[in-house]
């Protein structure tokens, strides 16, 4: 049966509708947000529709990937290496995206303009203190780094109970973080519309917050996959990239905490 045996370690993916769906729904989302926010279109139904389609397609695409990795055995060492490299590139592009927002923040804050009273935070803006809710959020993120490390090492030596605990604690801590950020936004004395301070603060922390929601979803899937015996002690690529993502977002938050909350208030 030589004709049916694969003599290379790579995974030749089959035809899939998901890249097509993802591209179209992302383009539609961008268009409907832009057209709505500039009052060219008076219906935000399409924003919600496209967010729903994106989440729906992501679910089905990831379902395919879970089948390929856990049930079809397509994730060989070479494939995992390729996916890991792809994820590294993705993370680098994310860091650069945050770098541009840090640049915007520092550009506005290091030399505040005349219009802002040449001070930062600008006159009349009551900033959020660094030693209150943001401190708790920082501690929660540092703790999530600890719990996920426990889960990772327990996974490598096949310690199911500690792996499950580690992933569950981490998921709960990240969900707690997102909820506390929601409270912080709800009780923030300034808003998105309060000049350069509001724009730069909310674009930095908001982009991070959206990433944290994505991370919470990834961790939920990871926890389920540990529970479902999908991960083995040698093959748990999704767990590894989720941990990498968590650490990168932790680091970005630490910079955000130091610059936007501590120094900037």
């Amino acid at each position: 049966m030589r004709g049916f045996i694969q003599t290379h370690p790579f995974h030749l993916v089959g035809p899939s509708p998901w890249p097509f769906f993802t591209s179209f729904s992302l383009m539609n989302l961008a268009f409907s947000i832009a057209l709505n926010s500039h009052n060219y279109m008076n219906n935000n139904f399409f924003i919600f529709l496209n967010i729903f389609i994106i989440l729906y397609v992501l679910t089905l695409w990831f379902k395919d990937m879970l089948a390929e990795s856990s049930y079809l055995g397509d994730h060989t060492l070479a494939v995992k290496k390729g996916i890991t490299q792809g994820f590294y590139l993705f993370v680098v592009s994310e860091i650069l995206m945050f770098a541009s927002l840090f640049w915007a923040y520092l550009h506005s804050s290091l030399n505040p303009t005349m219009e802002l009273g040449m001070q930062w935070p600008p006159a009349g803006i009551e900033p959020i203190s660094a030693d209150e809710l943001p401190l708790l959020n920082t501690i929660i993120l540092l703790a999530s780094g600890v719990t996920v490390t426990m889960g990772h090492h327990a996974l490598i030596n096949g310690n199911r109970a500690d792996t499950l605990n580690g992933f569950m604690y981490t998921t709960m801590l990240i969900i707690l973080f997102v909820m506390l950020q929601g409270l912080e936004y709800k009780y923030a004395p300034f808003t998105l519309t309060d000049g350069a301070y509001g724009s730069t603060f909310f674009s930095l922390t908001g982009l991070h917050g959206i990433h944290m929601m994505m991370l919470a979803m990834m961790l939920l899937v990871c926890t389920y996959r540990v529970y479902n015996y999908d991960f083995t002690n040698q093959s748990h690529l999704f767990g590894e990239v989720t941990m990498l993502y968590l650490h990168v977002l932790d680091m970005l938050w630490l910079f955000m905490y130091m610059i936007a909350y501590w120094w900037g208030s």
Partner: protein
Amino acid sequence: MFRSIVQRSFQRNASHGHGHVSKYLKEDPFKNMRNKKAGEAYIKDMEEKAHHSIGVTAMWKKITYFVAIPVVILTAIPVTKIELDHAKHREHLKHLSDEEWPVQYDYQNIRNKKFFWGDGDKTLFWNSDINRNIEA
């Protein structure tokens, strides 16, 4: 129609399209690709990694239960107290009239066009107790 397409694809894939079966059909496809040494080294490496991680897990387990979780709780207590104080302050702000409200500078509450949600004036995380857009 589909039946003939399927048959044709099967013939093409299984016999290189020429109606004959490959002479390599029964050969070991991996005969030049086996490397016993590399395989053993890989298994040894994995076993060492698993063995090493037992001690590491125990250490991070201690850090989780004796440092991470207690520190989160210990930070949460004073932060909760401070936030409850802020809630009292917000209660006070709520009852201020527009005249008593602090001066709004030009760069605060910028409205160039209506938002496409709600009444078009309130931001997404608007809190009427502490956020006020006073039209001068």
